[in-house]
């Protein structure tokens, strides 16, 4: 049977994992944890929340960094511990897992929408160049939706973003790189 998916396979698998989890309430609880540098994205939306396990009173949460040097990881770890402690779970371990490496494909559809409304173009708003990297132009402006834009820096305010400027409304904006 040919499955016709309306959602990228990676996102679908994540959703299945979450829905099948026996600690669904903890997945819901951790929706309150936002990336400190992208406050419109929860760690679920960004795709860095990988797993939650409960063994008696012990909760083990697995997260993965976007980039090797992501400076937000320590904050996120502390926020996760605090949220679970506040909810009454005292024994909390947050593991960092590197494999498989994070991919921007893991970002949720809601996350992409929120990102755009926040003024950051999500990865799919640009056609990649022949090397599969950020193109020199035509990422869609999240403000006026124009495609008449140009890249002004390959690296933006953080390693996961590039900087563009719109030629129509003149606003600069961040583009979330595909990785």
């Amino acid at each position, binding site marked *: 049977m040919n499955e016709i998916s309306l959602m990228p396979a990676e996102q679908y698998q994540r959703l299945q994992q979450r829905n099948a989890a026996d600690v669904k309430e903890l997945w819901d609880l951790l929706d309150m944890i936002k990336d400190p540098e992208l406050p419109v994205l929860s760690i679920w939306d960004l795709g860095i929340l990988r797993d939650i396990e409960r063994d008696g009173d012990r909760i083990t949460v697995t997260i993965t*960094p976007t*980039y*090797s*040097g*992501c*400076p937000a990881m320590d904050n996120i770890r502390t926020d996760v511990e605090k949220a679970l402690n506040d909810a009454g779970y005292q024994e909390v371990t947050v593991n960092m*897992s*590197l*494999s*498989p*490496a*994070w991919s921007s494909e893991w970002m949720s559809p809601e996350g992409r929408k929120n990102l755009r409304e926040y003024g950051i173009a999500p990865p799919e708003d640009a056609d990649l160049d022949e*090397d*599969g*990297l*950020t193109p020199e132009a035509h990422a869609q402006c999240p403000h006026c939706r124009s495609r008449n834009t140009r890249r*002004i*820096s*390959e*690296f*933006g*305010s*953080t*390693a996961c973003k590039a*900087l563009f400027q719109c030629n129509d409304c003149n606003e600069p904006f961040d583009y979330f*790189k595909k*990785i």
Partner: protein
Amino acid sequence: MSDAIKQATLEYVIRLGDDSVVLGHRISEWVSYGPFLEEDIAYGNVALDYIGRARLYYSYAAELADDGRTEDDFPYMRSDREYRNLLLMEMPRGDFAYSQVRQLFADAYAAVMLPELVKSKDETIAAVAAKAIKETKYHLRRSRDWVLRLGDGTEESHKRTQKAVDQLWGYTHELFDMDETEQLLADNGIGVDVSKLRDAWHAMVSEILTTATLTVPDDSWAVRGGRTGYHTENLGHMLTEMQIVHRSHPGCQW
């Protein structure tokens, strides 16, 4: 894991961590000195990627060593003679052309080496490599574009870039040296046999240099010593700056 292999893996992970932290620190020296704002930010981000890799390698080193040392002890509490980084990484930042040429050499090295390292039977090493491969694509494109722009730019930028190529070339031979430690790991599918990678690196770099109207140097001289702890005078100066806060306030937390 046998003791010999475990020891060799620890040594190998420290080497890779040292390469990353030293280059990351050198790149970070450009922050607030970049030629324009976007370039300044780009350099900061590339530095962060390298320092992030260093943290991953050193955390693993601390786990393998299992002697009470933490990830911070490796970068901050060892002297230059104990560092095992490749000499290329420690060369001072020089002018912008010099830093970009060094970056091209290092990025091209990462581009040929990481696809081998990701096959490592050691899961942690393979996982760090898998993350680094993705980042390196962006790094290499940037350093390649800069070398093309500077080499094929003005008379002055061409002159400076060629000078940087000539001055740094002799430090690239060491990138492809093997010793007993690395051979043992390569034979056991944990490390990379870098001696087999020079042709691919040379082809990649030559193509970029030639397109940039630059001359690929002859292999007329080579400096070696980083992997055995014999460094240029530059590393000691860099480390004093990098380590002073940590060493002045032992155990400080905030």
